[in-house]
């Protein structure tokens, strides 16, 4: 199986900003992403959980985005302004994918 270098960008961001973030990703030319629900967490702004919540103000989503290494810089540049103002964390991990043309 031939594998190709890629980057796994994982962005944990406020749910209320999810659509705005994914719009930025698409504008930045990303070919795809997946959103995973986050049920709770903790950070400098305290502890939270989605249990029993109806408010849309609290809660985070995890956006996972596999990109070609050469597309990474542009992707990060696109999302940086949002992450500077809004709570959220980003990690970028080296990974390998199967079909390079998809990313």
């Amino acid at each position, binding site marked *: 199986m031939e594998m190709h270098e890629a980057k796994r960008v994982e962005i944990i961001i406020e749910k209320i*900003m999810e659509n705005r973030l994914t719009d930025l990703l698409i504008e930045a030319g990303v070919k795809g992403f997946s959103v995973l629900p986050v049920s709770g967490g903790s950070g400098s702004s*305290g502890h*939270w959980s*989605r249990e029993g919540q109806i*408010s*849309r*103000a609290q809660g985070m989503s995890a956006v996972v985005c596999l990109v070609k290494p050469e597309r990474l810089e542009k992707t990060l540049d696109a999302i940086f302004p949002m992450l500077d*103002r*809004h*709570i959220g964390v980003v990690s970028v991990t080296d990974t390998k994918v199967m079909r390079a043309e998809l990313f």
Partner: protein
Amino acid sequence: MEQLFSLAQQNLLSPIILFFALGFSVAIAKSDLNFPEAIAKGMSLYLLFAIGFKGGASLSGYGIDLQLILSLLSGIILSATLPFLAFVLLRILTKMSAIDAAAVAAHYGSISIVTFVAASSILEIQGISYDGYMVAVAATMEAPAIISALWLISRKNKASKGLDGELMREILLNGSIVLLIGSFFIGLITGKDGLSEISPFISAPFKGVLCLFLLDMGLVAGRGLMNAKGAVSGRSVLFGVLMPLAGATIGLIFALVIGLPLGSTVLLMVLSASASYIAVPAAMRVAVPEANPAIYLTLSLGVTFPFNLTVGIPLYVTIATAVIGA
């Protein structure tokens, strides 16, 4: 005075308040009782659907009259101006930053639909009738407060992005408003026939669902308070109790001016006294991420909501009855 006590006692011993208190206290005792998010959201969709439809259906057959229009206008003016009062009060009473104060102010100009629903349940138990269009008044009071508060913030903070088109659309088309107003109009269009078709779903079980929903609200409010310890000062809590009283008083004045009957007067007071915790927090997170959400969520859901539910509503009923007469 006597009436107030008997009313307050009656209110405190009603199932909806007791279930809220149960949730609040077991959350503080760290019980793991909880509702799945989907169930909480499902119940809130049900409540909006039901009160919207019932409000509309009760109006069906009547024309649009002057009082309806004046009530809607009052709602818009109240929602747009109360944030300024709240902002000034906050700056006098507390040491909150201008940004935080403006964000909190947006919540108090806007409304809490569950407080509205609880108040209308209490009116029904008292046998006091109210106008179906008060649901529409509630809907008009969601957005103007946000705009006023964002204006306040843009004055203080030039960097603030403020109100872009997308946010405006989100505020005006937010799910709760759309469901409330949509159900209201469908109730209005289909009238008594429509109501009789779906009444066994939206009328008879309504209070039971409200009990469960308030149990969940109690859990969330109690847990919020536990997690936010330290985020709000004693003086902020004072604001959380004074502001609803001030709001209710101003709501009462508007009701007197436009000549609303007793039940609707109480509801306008309740709307003015209540603070949003669904639409406004979300808008603040988008537009003013610098403002600390722990402050406005704690004040609105942890202080003012319980205050209105337990003390506020019976008080507003008593005052309105004294002023207007039963």
